[in-house]
């Protein structure tokens, strides 16, 4: 018999039980849709993080106080020595590759103007931050170029904070209070949105020395160093490590290149995607059991038909092929349905969360489809074999 004849026969059998066929299709479709949607979410998260890192600037070295044994997760190890402004200065003076240096202190404080108050992230840094983090000004000035230790009472506001504190007014030149400090607004940042989880539009950027006094800190949170080109990253990293080890009399800082951070995050989130896919794959195997159940019912319902086929001279192998094809058709159709549903769900997700570049990875789509077909054949095997092994005489009698 030809494949076309086999398909026709099986489709006729399946369409004879529309509800049952539809329900088992649905089970498989949900499984495949789950694989596709969940892996799309995981992949979306991974790409989101990578995009975020790309947006903060390139050719960056990040110095973090404290030593981690393995590179990767920043901020876990306890700092032995402070990372100081003098360290930043030393790097600037002694390492020729370091083109731009932005020390960073971060805290949270209330900014107020008159009766209006806003809780914002306060970033203490230098003029170089503008270049290092690829920021732009809407108008006014950024932090003045000046000696690191000099902390003048000036602030550059994020665009949203500025708008909320000064509705309908020009903020530049006005005075705000940050904590107990009076600061003059000298500039407004251009809209940038969220960068690495921090909304740049809701920040107040002040000179680093001012911030250290405001938050009573002796140690910097980070020193960000931008080198001229990617090839200088590694030599600069070695030099920074050596310089700071000399200054601190021990190696107690961690220097990350952006690549290392990105690849660590990418690995973690890739593993997350895999786990999500595996969880969803469980629902595929549940769908497979559903198909097996449907096929077992079908075989026992069609016992007489099998007996008839055998009496008509249909071989065992052909009976096996009929029932295997039916379960494979069921699962493949369910898989395609699930693919469409999953794709639709991802589109809706992207519409709701435009920031998340969710799209299912190709491997997940291929695996879900292959798995659904495999599950159909695997779980169809037992019922099909049962049908093929029926004794013709007993089967004709419906036994």
């Amino acid at each position, binding site marked *: 018999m030809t494949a076309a*004849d086999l398909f026709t026969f099986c489709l006729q059998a399946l369409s004879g039980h529309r509800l049952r066929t539809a329900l088992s299709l649905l089970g498989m479709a949900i499984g495949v849709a789950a694989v596709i949607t969940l892996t799309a979410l995981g992949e979306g998260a991974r790409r989101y993080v990578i995009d975020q890192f790309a947006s903060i600037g390139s050719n960056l070295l990040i110095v973090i106080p404290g030593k981690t044994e393995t590179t990767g997760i920043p901020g876990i190890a306890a700092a032995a020595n402070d990372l100081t402004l003098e360290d930043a200065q030393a790097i600037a003076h002694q390492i020729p590759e370091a083109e731009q240096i932005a020390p960073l202190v971060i805290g949270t404080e209330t900014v107020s103007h008159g009766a209006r108050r806003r809780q914002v992230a306060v970033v203490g840094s230098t003029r170089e931050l503008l270049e290092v983090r690829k920021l732009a000004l809407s108008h006014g000035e950024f932090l003045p170029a000046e000696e690191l230790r000099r902390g003048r009472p000036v602030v550059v506001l994020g665009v949203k904070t500025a708008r909320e504190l000064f509705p309908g007014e020009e903020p530049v030149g006005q005075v705000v209070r940050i904590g107990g400090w009076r600061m003059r607004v000298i500039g407004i940042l251009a809209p940038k949105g969220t960068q690495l989880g921090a909304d740049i539009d809701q920040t107040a950027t002040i000179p680093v020395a001012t911030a250290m006094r405001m938050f009573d800190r002796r140690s910097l949170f980070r020193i960000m160093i931008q080198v001229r080109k990617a090839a200088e990253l590694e030599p600069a990293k070695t030099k920074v490590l050596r310089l700071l080890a000399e200054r601190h009399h021990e190696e107690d800082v961690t220097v990350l290149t952006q690549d290392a951070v990105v690849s660590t995050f990418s690995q973690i989130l890739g593993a997350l995607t895999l786990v999500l896919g595996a969880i969803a794959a469980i629902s595929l195997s549940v769908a497979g059991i559903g198909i097996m159940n449907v096929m077992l019912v079908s075989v026992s319902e069609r016992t007489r038909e099998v007996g008839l086929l*055998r009496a008509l*001279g249909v071989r065992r192998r052909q009976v096996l092929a009929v029932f295997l094809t039916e379960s494979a058709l069921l699962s493949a159709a369910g898989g395609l349905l699930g693919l469409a549903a999953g794709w639709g769900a991802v589109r809706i997700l992207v519409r709701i969360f435009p920031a998340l570049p969710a799209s299912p990875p190709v491997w997940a789509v291929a695996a879900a489809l292959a798995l659904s077909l495999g599950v159909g054949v695997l779980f169809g095997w037992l019922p099909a074999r049962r049908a093929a092994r029926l004794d013709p005489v007993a089967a*004709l009698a419906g036994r």
Partner: protein
Amino acid sequence: MIRLEKISRTYLLGGQPVHALDGITEHVKAGEHVAIMGPSGSGKSTLLNIVGCLDRPDAGSYWLNGREVGTLSDEELTAVRRDLIGFVFQAFHLVPRLTAAENVELPMVFAGISRGERRRRVEAALAAVDLSGRMDHRPDQLSGGERQRVALARATVMGPRVLLADEPTGNLDTASGRQILDLLARMNAEGITLVVVTHDPNVARRADRIVVLVDGRIARRLAGAEVSSTADLFAVANGEPG
């Protein structure tokens, strides 16, 4: 055409061996019409299943069309059924989701006959049972007699040498039954070997010979004038001396 030599078939029923057939020896010539009668449990159906290569004897030998088939593998027996044997059942055994034409086509689909040839043969077979106008009807849209005629068309569409009918009129009214018997007789006249298992004296009377089975043995053979002259075939069929 059919040669059975000392055929025995034993089942285990509740751990007890039951001799369904006990040393049956019988020859059926090509083109013959033979009726098998006997009370319930006499082994009629078992005998028909063995003749139809659906079942195998435990002992004895069976030659069909000059070939020893009692010892063939399942795969080979399947091929024998496909090429040499047509079955007609009391319960029709039509596939409910398929039309009359599709039911008739079924054995040819699995035998790998081309689409065009199948169509030609389906039309011829349904015309032969006078159902050309019912090709696209499903079984539930057909009367009992029409269903059995579809089954008859299906049984003969592969061009078998032997037609085996198990109570072919058992589920039919008298008129429909007579129509089926006429068709069977016509096919037999065209050369097909016909073996009919029946309780019904009116069905048996149409045969050239009657074989009466009691307790798995041949109790009596009637041939020629005996078939029509035996008044109480029913009593004979139940193993009583008539």
